[in-house]
C-alpha cells in the first residue's frame, strides 16, 4: 500500500512527465494559451492515461512478455517472447481506447464530452500517453495497482504543469519581452524555470 502511494507522489512531482522527461510537449505548447482550454486537455490526459496504462499493463503481462502466454498454452509457451511487438500493440490500444472512450463519454456524460470535446481525438498522438505505457513497461511494475497509480500520478503531474504554464502565459502577455523571444521562446524559458523549481521535490519518499 505504501508503494502505491509512493509511486503516485513520485510520478506527480519527481518524475513529472513534462519537467523531467518532456513528454507531451507538443500539445503542452500548443494548447496552453488560456487556463480553460489547458484544464480541459489536462483532464482528458489524466482520464486517458488512467485507462490506457492499466490496459497496456494487462496486455504486456498476459500476452507479450516472455513466458506471459503460460496461462493459455501451458509450459509450451515458456519461450515465446513477443515483446518486440509492444510498440505496435501499445499504439493500437491507445488509438482504439481513445476512440472507445470518446464514444462512451459522448453517450453517458454529454457535459464532460462537451468540455473535453476536440481534445480527446488529439490525445491519441500525445507522447505522454505512449510514454506512460513505455515507462510502465520499462520500470516493471509488479501489480496493476502500481501501474494505475503511476498512470494517475503522471496524468495529474501533466495537468499541474499545463495549467501552471497557461496561467503564467495569460499574465506574461502584458510583459515587455524582447521581440525575438515572444511566444515560443519565453514559454520555453518559463518551462525551464518551472522545471528547476520542481527539482526541489527530488528525494521525497513517503
Amino acid at each position, binding site marked *: 500500500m505504501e508503494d502505491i502511494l509512493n509511486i503516485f507522489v513520485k510520478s506527480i512531482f519527481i518524475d513529472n512527465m513534462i519537467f523531467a522527461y518532456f*513528454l507531451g510537449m*507538443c500539445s503542452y505548447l500548443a494548447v496552453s494559451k488560456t487556463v480553460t482550454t489547458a484544464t480541459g486537455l489536462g483532464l482528458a490526459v489524466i482520464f486517458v492515461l488512467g485507462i490506457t496504462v492499466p490496459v497496456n499493463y494487462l496486455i504486456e503481462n498476459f500476452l507479450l512478455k516472455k513466458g506471459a502466454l503460460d496461462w493459455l498454452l501451458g509450459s509450451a509457451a515458456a519461450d515465446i517472447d513477443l515483446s*518486440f511487438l509492444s510498440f505496435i500493440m501499445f499504439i493500437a490500444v491507445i488509438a482504439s481506447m481513445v476512440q472507445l472512450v470518446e464514444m462512451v463519454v459522448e453517450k453517458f456524460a454529454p457535459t464532460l464530452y462537451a468540455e473535453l470535446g476536440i481534445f480527446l481525438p488529439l490525445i491519441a498522438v500525445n507522447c505522454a500517453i505512449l510514454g506512460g505505457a513505455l515507462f510502465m*513497461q520499462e520500470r516493471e511494475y509488479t501489480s496493476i495497482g502500481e501501474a494505475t497509480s503511476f498512470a494517475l500520478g503522471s496524468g495529474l503531474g501533466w495537468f499541474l504543469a499545463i495549467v501552471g504554464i497557461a496561467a503564467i502565459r495569460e499574465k506574461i502577455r502584458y510583459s515587455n519581452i524582447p521581440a525575438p*523571444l515572444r511566444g515560443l521562446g519565453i514559454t*520555453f524559458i518559463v518551462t*525551464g524555470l518551472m*522545471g528547476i523549481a520542481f527539482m526541489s521535490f527530488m528525494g521525497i519518499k513517503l
Partner: protein
Amino acid sequence: MSTKTLKLLSDPLNLNNPITVQVLGICSALAVTVKLEPAVVMSLSVLFVLAFANVIISLLRNTIPSRIRIIVQLVVIAALVIIVDQVLKAYSYEVSKQLSVFVGLIITNCILMGRLEAFALGNKPWPSFLDGVGNAAGYSIILIIVAFFRELFGSGSIWGIQIIPDSFYDFGYVNNGLMILPPMALIIVAIIIWVQRSKTRELIETN
C-alpha cells in the same frame, strides 16, 4: 537538382525548422541531448523513419481511405520504429539503453504525423523522400547543437572524449552540473530560438 527540390531540403534547416518554427517533435528532442552520442543516434533513427514513412505513405496515398488514414500512418511508423529499435538493440546496446523509451516515442513524434499529413499524402514519392530527409535534418541540427553545448559544459567532453584539459580543473574550473539537468535543454532551445529570430525577423510572433 532544381531549385524546387533544393528548397525541400534547405527550408526545414532554417526558415521552416520543425522544432523552432513549426514546434513539432519537441518531446523526444530534449530528453536525449545530455550527451552528443545518443543525440546523433536519435537523429539518424528519426531520419530513417521519417524518410521511409514519407515514401511509403506517398506510394499508398491514392489507396488509403481518408477515414482510417491516421491508423494506417501509425502502423507504418510503428513498423519502421520497431525495425530501428531491434537494430539498435542488436548493434549498439549501450546507446539503446540510454535512449530507453525515446526510440519508441518516435512513433508519437509530431514531426512524423505532421509531415505525413501535410506533405506525403499529397506528393509523389521522390519529393516526399526529400521532404523527410530535410525535416529530419532540421530536427537533427537543433538536437546536435543542444547536445554539443550540454555535453561540453556539463561533462567537459565531446563524444565521450575529454576536451577541457586537466589544468583547467586544477585551476578551479568546475563542470556546470546544471547543464545535465533537464530544464537546461529548454533554456538552450530558447536561446537558439532567440538567435534565429533576431537574424530572421519575419519569424517573430506578434501577440
